[in-house]
């Protein structure tokens, strides 16, 4: 029998409290709270579709227990951009047709956001290091790379260090 305890966290910029069991994953907590943009894929930490940002870093919510988020700041796809005011990478993904079935996309957007918040103009090596945890089964990555290149060029206002 799992005991319920209350945790506090800042979720998409809002202070929140949740009753959680020790067994509950952060992914389960988010989805039962209505934040279903965080996707359930492999559930073993390999595919990245459940990626959220915790204290500035991309993590897999499927293998993170909900209680690990206590006193931390968590961002999900619902907190990134809005209709009419998307994150620059979301906008570029639409313009460059980077989305096919869309299942992997929330995770990729969060991994990219965490990277660009930390390194606005990353090198090719830094991009590989930051995005090696996100699988896309549809696109072949090329259009996603186009969108990323365009986002970096637009947000830093100069030629990206990463040459394709």
């Amino acid at each position, binding site marked *: *029998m*799992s*005991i319920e*305890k209350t945790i506090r966290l800042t979720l998409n910029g809002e202070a929140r409290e949740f009753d959680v069991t*020790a*067994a509950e994953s952060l992914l389960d907590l988010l989805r039962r709270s209505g934040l279903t943009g965080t996707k359930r894929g492999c559930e*073993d*930490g*390999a595919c*990245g579709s459940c*990626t959220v940002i*915790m204290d500035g*870093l*991309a*993590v*897999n919510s499927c*293998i*993170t*227990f909900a*209680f*690990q988020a*206590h006193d931390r700041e968590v961002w999900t796809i619902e907190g990134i951009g809005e209709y009419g005011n998307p994150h620059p990478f979301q906008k570029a993904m639409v313009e460059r047709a980077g989305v096919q079935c869309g299942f992997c996309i929330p995770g990729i957007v969060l*991994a990219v956001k965490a990277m660009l918040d930390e390194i606005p103009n990353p090198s090719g090596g830094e991009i*590989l*290091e*930051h*995005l*090696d*945890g996100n*699988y896309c089964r549809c696109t072949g990555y090329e259009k996603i790379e186009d969108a990323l290149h365009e986002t970096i060029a637009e947000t830093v206002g100069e030629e990206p260090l990463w040459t394709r």
Partner: protein
Amino acid sequence: MTFEDFLIPKTLDEAREALETLGDRGYALAGGTAFQYVADRPGATAVDITRLGLRGIDRTADGFRIGATTTLTDLVRYRAEGWVLDRVATRIPTHQVRNISTVGGNISRLFPWSDLPLALLVLEGRVVVSSDEERTYEALEFFTAQPLNRFGPGTLVTAVIVPAVAPPLGFGFKKESTTNAAFSLMTAAAAITLAGDRLDKVRLAANAALPVPMRLTEAEAALEGRPADPALFEAAIERGMAGLEWHGREGMSDEFARHLAAVILRDVLEEALRAAKGGAE
């Protein structure tokens, strides 16, 4: 692992006390990424150890002291002369896992794919363990058995110590996997210390195709004191590999695992030798 309760202590003493009281039911939880591979136990309670001030890397007189809850990403980002663990940590998948999983977690419960133990074994690192008193273990001793099974409840790894690596000491590390994010098929690490044009000290270790990280002491002995000549590596590796059972993973045959192991062991020795001579690592 399905935990039934969790605790979030604020100090090392509080965490150790909780784990001691819980006995077999208590589990230190750092990144938590390994618990999907741990069998359930009634009453299992997680003790979150990430808020005890055990995170960070300090430069010491001859190396580095790394707090147990330092993340693998911290290892990747850290820059200092003589620092080589970034090269090992980058090869542990994936970015999301590296962001949350810790040095202590990677070495306290060994898996066939555990990478940091190999680096600690060849660099002759040390592991600081805190129970009623603080004790420092040589890596070789720490990794002789599954670390979790030999320490009683309330015992925590608090830090890891590694030397700075500079000629005449050189380090080599290589890992083979089907994709960047897959578990390793074969991982090896080597450290060579030169004395003039001779191999003074050789440390060679492998994992993944072996059930636990292991030093290949026969190969080391076959090389020490000999000329620093890569032509000697093949025969020494053959000697070191004999008597060990090499297992193929992910559909690979045992015979191929053995072949792959021999190739990668030679690669890491050559890399360590180049580095020991001051060449590019």
